[in-house]
């Protein structure tokens, strides 16, 4: 992946969610955004995913400007997005959650979409749950359906916004494991996470976002083990204080 952000700005009223953010990375397979809550990670992901238009500055991801209105819809269709709160469609079964976008957005036939959905849901251990409504599934299962829905269309980039923040440790582990498998299979991923161990294991590049800016970024091992900036050092020592007990061993 190649990401170029220059003076990227996004404000909500008086809040500067992104405050002239600069970031330039290339040749990255998995990029992890870490940092304090409210620092701008989600906003950056939403702008990169084409869900939100930036107010100023420029951004290009793999040569596309997702922040521009004209390109945003096509860009969203090329990529997958997973939310912290699952956001499955509650009136549709797990299976239909996956097939509906395949049919209506990607123009696949009903049989073809059903086959793909079966494969994806199977792969994430959801056989036997496919005809349940989201409310009948556990949080972990819902997030796995969300993941299946996001990857069903073979996205160029998978964008994950704190995919495990709403899950308990056991479910967190099972979802992280699946994301790890996707990354190992070559899926390009941009994610925000509070799971430092997971970031270390899966990401090849890490950026610390705070106060709407990139405080530090670089190869995962470097940033997480030998942070140069004081802000990063403080943040890491805080989140590592009690260890991270539920990290998958990858």
């Amino acid at each position: 992946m190649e990401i170029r952000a220059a003076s990227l700005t996004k404000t909500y009223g008086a809040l500067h969610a992104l405050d002239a953010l600069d970031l330039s990375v290339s040749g990255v397979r998995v990029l992890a955004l870490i940092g304090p809550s409210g620092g701008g990670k989600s906003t950056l992901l939403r702008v990169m995913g084409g869900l939100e238009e930036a107010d100023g500055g420029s951004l290009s991801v793999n040569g596309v400007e997702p922040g521009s209105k004209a390109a945003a819809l096509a860009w969203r269709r090329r990529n997958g997005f997973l939310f912290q709160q699952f956001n499955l469609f509650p009136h549709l079964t797990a299976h239909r959650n996956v097939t509906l976008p395949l049919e209506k957005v990607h123009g696949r036939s009903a049989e073809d979409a059903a086959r793909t959905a079966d494969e994806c849901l199977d792969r994430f251990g959801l056989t036997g749950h496919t005809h349940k409504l989201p409310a009948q599934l556990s949080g972990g299962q819902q997030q796995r359906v969300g993941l299946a829905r996001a990857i069903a269309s073979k996205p160029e980039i998978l964008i994950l916004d704190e995919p495990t923040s709403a899950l308990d440790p056991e479910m967190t582990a099972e979802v992280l494991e699946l994301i790890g498998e996707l990354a190992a299979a070559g899926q390009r991923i941009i994610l925000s996470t509070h799971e430092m161990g997971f970031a270390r294991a899966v990401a090849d590049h890490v950026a610390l976002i705070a106060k709407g800016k990139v405080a530090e970024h670089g190869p995962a091992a470097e940033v997480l083990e030998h942070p140069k900036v004081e802000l990063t050092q403080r943040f890491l020592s805080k989140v590592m204080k009690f260890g991270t007990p539920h990290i998958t061993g990858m």
Partner: protein
Amino acid sequence: MSSRPGERRLLFDAVVGVLLTSVLCALFWWLLNSMDKKWQWESAWSYRVVLWEGWLTTLGISVAALPGSCLVAAVLVAGSRAKLVSVRWITRGFVEIMRGMPLLTLIFIGYYLVFTQQRIADVLAGLGLGSKMFAGIALLSVFTAAYLSEILRGGLDSIPQGQIDSARAVGFDRPQVLRYVIMPQALRRVLPALAGQFVTLVKDSSLLSVIAVGEFTYQARAYNSASYSGLEAFVILGIGYLLITLPIAWFAHWMESRFRYQM
């Protein structure tokens, strides 16, 4: 043995149901018979054609005004969500004026101000829509639409932003977001209120008798004054309206259970 308490409860429930129904029926029967009056159902029977035509007209008005009101409501909802502030304000004002006036007033003002205006009447007559019945359907549609639009607006606004985000993220365009994600959820939520409004529409059509639309109430009153009958006409009216409104309520309940899901 474990099912005994359940069975006993069911039996108790059935007994209470039968008792209550009997008491209510007996009370109603007693009221009917204790009146100082002889019921004259024979004269009602001789006016059956008049009443039947009236009932059919009411059914026709309801069947036409139901989609008509939905159509106008859709326009009002679109107006209330328009990008232009002026359009939003005008829509808002229109809705509030419609909801703030008694239907009777609207029917009089609307009919005599708009539908009897010579040019408008000529144009409508040219289109084959010059009848009082059409005027009635139009006025009823607009009046009901004001209420429907507020119900729908509330339903649409109740869908969390996360659903819209998620729908956009999977690649739906704006119409698709509305069609596949927002509308199904919003409609399910407002179904009971919508059904109530449709039932009200059917009953409200009785007010069209004031501009001499030959609907059920109008015909029943004609029969009433021609035959000097008393309450018979109103008993028939009550039953006649229930024949239209109860199926709507049943249908709404069926839809509710059909599309039940939890958030």
